[in-house]
């Protein structure tokens, strides 16, 4: 299993956290021409500008898909993931309207549980219960703290 990147969007639809992981060194050959939000081979070298564009594109995609799923399947239906030839996108929405998105390789099974774990064990513990982190995370303020970053990195690397 390879995890390419991870994004958090707050209830104001702002991307308040994004993080990419270097792919294992071996297989950089296959990704040559792909869609707008590309798995890491390229996004490692992407500039800050285009990575914020990536986040916007991803949010647009999941937001539309989620609404479409609800229209088609009723309000109780949930959009969980989609996959392309290059990657699989996993989506998890909390009751507090926080949206977590993770991009992995295509063979990965459901990461819903993983995203839920990130939410309860890392987000709630190190961001929500962090006295030095504000209630609203405008511009990602307070999210990128050392404990959250370290916890997330350890957790994700443990999965890979």
């Amino acid at each position, binding site marked *: 299993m390879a995890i390419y990147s991870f994004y958090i969007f707050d209830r104001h639809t702002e991307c308040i956290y994004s993080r990419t992981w270097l792919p294992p060194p071996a297989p950089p050959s296959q990704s040559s021409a792909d869609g707008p939000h590309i798995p890491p081979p390229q996004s490692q070298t992407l500039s800050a500008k285009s990575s914020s564009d990536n986040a916007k594109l991803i949010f647009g995609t999941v937001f539309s898909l989620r609404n479409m799923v609800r229209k088609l399947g009723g309000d109780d239906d949930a959009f969980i993931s989609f996959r392309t030839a290059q990657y699989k996108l996993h989506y998890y929405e909390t009751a507090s309207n926080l949206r977590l998105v993770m991009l992995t390789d295509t063979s990965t099974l459901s990461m819903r549980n993983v995203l839920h774990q990130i939410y309860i064990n890392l987000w709630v*513990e*190190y961001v929500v*219960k*962090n*006295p*030095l*982190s*504000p*209630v*609203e995370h405008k511009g990602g303020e*307070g999210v*990128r*703290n*050392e*404990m*959250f970053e370290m916890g997330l990195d350890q957790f994700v690397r443990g999965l890979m």
Partner: protein
Amino acid sequence: MSFESVMPPYNSTDPTARFLSSSSLDFLLIEMVPMAYRVTNQLASSSSATSSPSTGSDPTIQSQIQEGKKEEQEREPPAASAAVVLDEEELRESVFFRLESIGYRVGQGLVERFSRDRTRFGDTLDVIKFLCKDLWTLVFRKQVDNLKTNHRGVYVLTDNQFRPFSRMSTEPGGQAVLRAQPFLWLPCGIVRGALAAMGIQATVQAETTELPGAVFQIKTIAGKN
């Protein structure tokens, strides 16, 4: 944090005990500090507005602005807006006094509530031990890690995993230690209040050099023990 109900033999010695999510205490403690800053700033700005109306600023407008700002300021010690009314030292003192007094009251109450089944304490060291073990566990869910004394009325309590600091973290270079300092003031008050309730007048100072540790220094005031 849990929605499960607690299974019966919870507390046979204390039938009046109730359970409360520890997260609510955490959140309350987190909010105390920014609240103290807000209240202090609000009081300062309203008093300066009434005392010097010549500045032309209408107090109601000012308070409206304050209301609006509240949301944004939330947990930041609002240094920028404070500079207008109070200089940093004044603000610090005033917030310290506010939090410390609240803590003092809490500490006094806690001791009355939780020392009721104990016999009188023999000497100051017994009181300090009660503070380090029982009271610390009640408030911070663990005991103090280390207690030192010079046997002349100075006690140094070291907690290597001070509970309110356990999740405190900022981005690298975010001055976490400096920003953690105000979160020690309420606990300082609790300690001083607790000691006062047990008949010991003392001054309490706390500092941290590395999160999540905290060091409390208690100086008893001579002639009172």
